[in-house]
């Protein structure tokens, strides 16, 4: 049984915030849990009271009610405190939790909005209630990357409820602005032929411009591999960057059932590969 998300967040906030801020938060949490607090009036003060710095917990995760693991690496202290407030309010009125998060997004500044978005996957009804979807859609349109990131990355809620068209646009925009698309939940489950070919187009555009290509694109491109992709990925299997070799190995493994003639090239490279992660990826690819 994974630990209660509120417990995890409480410990992380306690390690980062000032004592006076924590006392203030305890009062606000008690009011929220008793249904006494108007969170729209509480939310703006959270950053002032608890700080805006990173949680500094790169490996920390919380687990949603549906069992999805959610990374806290990008969270700030005020994000975690706002999520705790929403979890407290949800104990009082679980059916309104997602609608309340949307309302707080609408009324919030950037920090408040990020906090509301980060809460969505952890609130009651996250798996079925799309009441907060308008907030996610709004955040996909803004230029402030931090909001886009909070809406889409490490968010099972977004990946569950976004319509396919919007979800595809979100994946591409994430790649475009330099976020790791591996942070998008259900990436491979939801990837369709159109997204697969879009990411390959994006990769080619980057190559033509002599700009770096995010390696995480290769497995998505391989899902609906067009002719010639195998040869391109064999080239990336010789790339100096380990991440490119590893992603190319994974992608080639996905293509093997349809293109068995790629197999000897993988075997051949495996014999020469110095990096253990790539070797393991090749072994898994060949086993498939």
């Amino acid at each position: 049984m994974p630990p209660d998300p509120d417990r995890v967040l409480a410990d992380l906030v306690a390690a980062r915030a000032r004592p006076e801020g924590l006392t203030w938060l305890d009062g606000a949490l008690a009011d929220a849990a008793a249904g006494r607090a108007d969170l729209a009036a509480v939310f703006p003060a959270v950053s002032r009271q608890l700080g805006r710095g990173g949680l500094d917990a790169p490996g920390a995760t919380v687990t949603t009610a549906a069992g999805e693991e959610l990374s806290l690496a990008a969270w700030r202290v005020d994000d975690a405190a706002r999520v705790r407030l929403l979890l407290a309010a949800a104990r009082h009125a679980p059916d309104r939790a997602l609608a309340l998060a949307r309302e707080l997004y609408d009324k919030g500044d950037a920090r408040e909005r990020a906090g509301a978005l980060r809460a969505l996957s952890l609130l009651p009804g996250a798996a079925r209630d799309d009441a907060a979807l308008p907030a996610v859609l709004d955040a996909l349109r803004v230029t402030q990357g931090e909001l886009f990131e909070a809406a889409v990355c490490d968010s099972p809620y977004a990946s569950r409820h976004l319509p396919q068209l919007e979800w595809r646009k979100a994946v591409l925009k994430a790649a475009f602005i330099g976020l790791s698309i591996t942070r998008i939940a259900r990436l491979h489950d939801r990837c369709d032929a159109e997204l697969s070919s879009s990411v390959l187009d994006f990769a080619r555009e980057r190559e033509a411009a002599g700009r770096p290509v995010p390696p995480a694109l290769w497995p998505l491109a391989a899902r609906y591999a067009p002719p010639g992709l195998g040869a391109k990925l064999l080239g990336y299997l010789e790339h100096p960057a380990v991440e490119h070799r590893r992603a190319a190995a994974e992608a080639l493994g996905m293509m093997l059932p349809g293109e068995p003639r790629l197999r000897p090239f993988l075997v051949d490279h495996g014999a020469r590969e110095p990096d253990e992660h790539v070797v393991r990826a090749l072994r898994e690819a060949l086993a498939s």
Partner: protein
Amino acid sequence: MRIFEPHAHMYSRITDDYEQMALAGVEAILEPAFWLGQPRTHVGTFLDYFDALLGWERYRAAQYGVHHFCAIALNPKEANDDRVNAGVVEAMPRYLAKDGVLAVGEIGFDDMTPREETWFGRQLELARAHGLPALIHTPHRDKKRGVERTLDLLRDVGFPMERALVDHNNEETVGLCADTGCYMGFSIYPETKMDEGRMVALLQKWGTDRMILNSACDWGRSDPLKVAKTALRMKRGGFSAAEVDKVVWHNPIAFFAQSGRLVEADLDARPVLDGELFSGNSILRGQGQ
């Protein structure tokens, strides 16, 4: 030289201006809410504008390492418009609670109408209720009487003078303000209001206490570098570096720090750039970027 620009309408400027201002030493900007060139007819357009001051403008500024703050208000011109005045003031409290909001402003008189007086007074009450100072516009026409009426109103409602920044002063009005304890703002414009040379003469005559310079740059013919240019003129006019710092950095900080939301040391750090994650953390960024 570090500059705190205490009155700039960046909403009406291009992003290059942020870069130019940063190059000239501007490290923080306070953007007061004002009108948008023509009357608004819906309360909602004000709220979108307030959201832009809190979000988009802060983001644009942060890209150049500039801290962006704002003041929120129903401006004096549109205080006369019954389509919007009551609704905007009713919506203000939730904005006045926000982190980046350091004052109520611009409020004050423009044509000195009864409606302007009503909403000026109500917004001073809001400022007091939220523990915020007030940034006060004074009329371009009949300025002297406008400043007199402003000071009278502040006294009548018992608003603490040191929490009022009476702006757009000139040679005629500075004497009215000097002994009241209020902060005195001067908008340095290319043609009208006040220029660098006159400003230096004013500082020589009246001293540097509670004196604050701004460019008040907006859509009109204005220059976002006027504070830097005036600081340069001050140095040529014999002011020490410490005195220049006092006028273009410490005085505006002292005034807006009365909000309880501005800590000078926080200005030493780069502003949080929305969209910039914890850089260097490869978990967050696409590998190979």
